[in-house]
């Protein structure tokens, strides 16, 4: 069974490192977005639902 198993794509160290960096950057960006929405919700209070056109 194992003999037939394809090795698949093996990432080089550089590829692994850059992918990890990109993943961390995306996580940080999403974290900032969540914090931003949370902070604005606190600042606006109930008025957060009032959005003038």
């Amino acid at each position, binding site marked *: 069974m194992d003999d037939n198993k394809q090795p698949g*794509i093996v990432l*080089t160290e550089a*590829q692994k490192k850059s992918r990890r960096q*990109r993943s*961390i950057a995306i996580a940080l960006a999403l974290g900032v977005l969540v914090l931003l929405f949370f902070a*604005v919700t606190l*600042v606006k209070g109930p008025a957060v639902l009032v*959005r*003038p*056109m």
Partner: protein
Amino acid sequence: MSVVDHNAIDLSPRISEAEVGDYIALLKPRVMSLVIFTALVGLMIAPVHVHPVLAFTSILCIAVGAGASGALNMAYEHDIDALMTRTANRPIPRGKITQGEAAAFGITLAFFSVMTLGILVNWVAGALLAFTIFFYAVVYTIWLKRWTAQNIVIGGAAGALPPVVAWAAATGSLSVEPLLLFLIIFFWTPPHFWALALFRSDDYARAGVPMLPVVAGPDATRLQILLYTIVLVAIALAPWPLGYFGAAYGVTSLVLGAGMLWLSINVYRHREGIEASRATRRLFAFSILYLFALFAVLLLEVVVRAIAPMVW
């Protein structure tokens, strides 16, 4: 029998080695810094109190929107970027990021910046930011840039909009003051970029971009620089006597405006050799200082007005 030689085609998926820095480069950080600064001024001169969190959100969204425009611009222009010395080192020509990845990055950032500004601040600002991104990425990059020598004149509107977006974020509406800021940046753009184009005209010619020096020649460009500078200096001075901005702004505008005029006259007079090259480079460098100083003084006037009642 197959007509395709599968051994000759690399069917392995492309694994990206792009680093975070390459994606940051797509955002055009230097352009973004000017956008942040002009937007901050637009926000600060608005006659309303803006909560710091909302002010931060607005500036962040405008900055990310500007970055999205930059990424979309690089995605479309990767072919000519590879031909020009100034842009050959960008992530797509270097092979670090593909055109599709840059486009996806730009679209994602554009979507999030517009929606966040609209939802958290107001939809006038959100709509204006969407229009700014559209104008830069589609009207300027796709339509105007390779079609007309007036590309940066009309396209300059996109670069002039950030303070207007910021004012709208603060007030939810528009007024004369942000439009004055818009006009100052709008008329500043041609002398600034044509000064750059004069000493980079070989680059633009090689890439087939119809910049004014390439299409109409350096002498016609020098005349246009002088004419636009005269209009710019007049427009930048007008808000003072009209009572929109204070005396500090007026004096700064007068003194630095005289400097802009003097340097553009020098560009017009010196047409050959090292003197011509020096004159254009001086105007290009001074134009950055000119715009920065005008907006910095506006910011200073706001700060002084806020602090003065506490001191006296």
